[in-house]
Structures are given as C-alpha cells and as structure tokens.
C-alpha cells in the first residue's frame, strides 16, 4: 500500500522515500527533558516500526546529529553524520528550547532537509506559528497517543518532502 512519491522528491532522508524502502526502518531522534515522555514517545514510535534514539536535551541531540560545538572543527569527518529521518522534540526544555534546536537544525546544510516535529503540552497559537515559520513540519499537542503517531506518518508521507 505504498504511496508513491513524485520522482522529483528531494534526498533519501525523507520519511516517504525511506518508507518505500522496506529494508530500513525510519530512524527517529526524540528529544525531551522528561524521562517519562522519552519512554512514552520511544514506545509509541517503536510500536510504529521506527528505530528510536532519545536525547534529554538540545545539546545532546545536536551532538548525536554531528552538529555539536566540537564537530564544527571536524567538518571533514562526515562519517558521523547520522542517518536520522525525523526529529521530534519537546518545545519547553531548560537551556536550549525545542525552537532553538529547530533553528540550529535548519541552519545546518547537512541536516536542514530532515523533518522536525515540535511537541508541546501548551496550545499557544503564536508558539505554533513561530515554529512552523521556522520550518517545523508539524506541531503536536501532548500527551501523545498512538493516533498522533499514525497521523504524523501519514502527514510526512503525503507532504512529498
């Protein structure tokens, strides 16, 4: 039941392209400062056949993506560039917020094509539009449910990203 993406779809880092490739599970990086929410999102994603890596804050997430501070000096070391297909992050985190993390990802020539989804327990319209304007693919309200993950997958597959 694969939904075909147009041949002009961008790089293979998009969820859609990967979901057609039955060999590999989509790899999702989930970022949240709450240990409970990390466990929950991990299970939700694993139940949807995703490979999951979790990070407890923005700086750790950036390190995992190869965008950490010390990585800037090693721009030739592409070996560590993670093949992450989706980043889902909480908005309210101490220090670097999900919005700050989103900006850093969109500033990176390597990672900017990876879809980023923002989650928040608060439904603040200005917050939502700010994130979408900065390039977030979707904004989701917590607490997340299985139906949200289904909707997420559908949205990513249909956006032809």
């Amino acid at each position, binding site marked *: 039941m694969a939904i075909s993406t147009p041949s002009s779809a961008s790089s293979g880092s998009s969820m859609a392209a990967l979901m057609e490739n039955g060999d590999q599970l989509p790899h999702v990086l989930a970022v949240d400062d*709450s240990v*409970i929410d990390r466990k929950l999102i991990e*299970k939700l994603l694993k*139940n949807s056949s995703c490979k999951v890596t979790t990070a407890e804050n923005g700086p750790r997430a950036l390190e995992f993506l190869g965008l950490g501070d010390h990585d800037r000096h090693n721009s030739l070391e592409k070996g560590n560039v993670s093949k992450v297909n989706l980043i889902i992050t909480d908005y309210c985190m*101490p220090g670097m917020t999900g919005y700050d993390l989103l900006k850093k990802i969109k500033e990176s020539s390597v990672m900017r094509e990876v879809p980023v989804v923002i989650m928040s327990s608060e439904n603040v319209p200005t917050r939502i539009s700010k994130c979408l304007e900065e390039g977030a693919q979707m904004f989701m309200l*917590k607490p997340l449910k*299985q139906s949200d993950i289904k909707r997420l997958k559908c949205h990513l597959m249909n956006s032809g990203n």
Partner: protein
Amino acid sequence: MAGSGLVDQLKKQLEAFTASLFSEGFLDDQFTQLQQLQDESNPDFVVEVVSLFFEDSERLLNELAKALDQQNADFTKVDAHVHQLKGSSSSIGAQGVQRACIAFRNCCEEKNIEGCLKCLQLVKQEYTLVKNKLQTMFKLEQQLLAAQRTSFPM
C-alpha cells in the same frame, strides 16, 4: 474448579477496581493509551512508566517544598517544577494530579505564597491517593497472574 474460579474472581476484582479509578477521576484516557502500548516485547511497560512517574514526582514534590520554604520564594522556579509535574501526570493519565497542578500554576502566577503552600498540599494529597490506587492495581494484577499460572500450568 477451584483454580479457574479463583482466576475469574480475581479478574472481576481487577476489572472493577480499575474501572473505579477511571470513574472516580484518578485516571483518564491517557492511562488507557499506556495499557494499549504494552505488548509481549515489553510486558512491564505500564509498571515501568508508572515507576518512573513515582520517582520523578517525589523528586519534584521535594523541590517544591524546598523552593516554597525560602524567604523570597522564586515563583518562576516553583512554576517550572509544577509545569513538569503537570506534564508527567498528564502523560500517564493521572488526572487528579494534573488538575491540582493546573490550580497550582494559577497561584504561582499570582505570586501568592499562602495559596501555593495550600496547592502543594493538595497536589501531594492527589499524588498519594493515585500512587496507592496504582500500587493496589499492580498487586491485583500480580495476584491474577500468579493464579493463572497455577490454574493452567504449561
């Protein structure tokens, strides 16, 4: 047959008890979501998440008591802790705790120390209640599992 009779009894007890947690407002639909996520690959998922919630909540309640015990309480800090507790209780479906946290945040906004102290007591009460209820539920589950193993030895 005594074996399956006991199993049926325990099952009914567990179902009735669990249903009461929902009807009495301790838990909401999000808890059902957790139960639905549990599967053979992770048969203790609910217990694991709830245990994390207990640990995290107790930590936050301690932090809140400390923060409110200051001469000039830092309401931003207090609010941040309450926000976290509200989030985690919402994520597991602990509706009573979540509601108490919402009220607490209003007191934080008003920078009302007396109000905050009262709210902290209320949150603590709700937390203790739901913790006891959940621990009882897990005990009943264990009893049921044990009875099932005895009735139907494989």
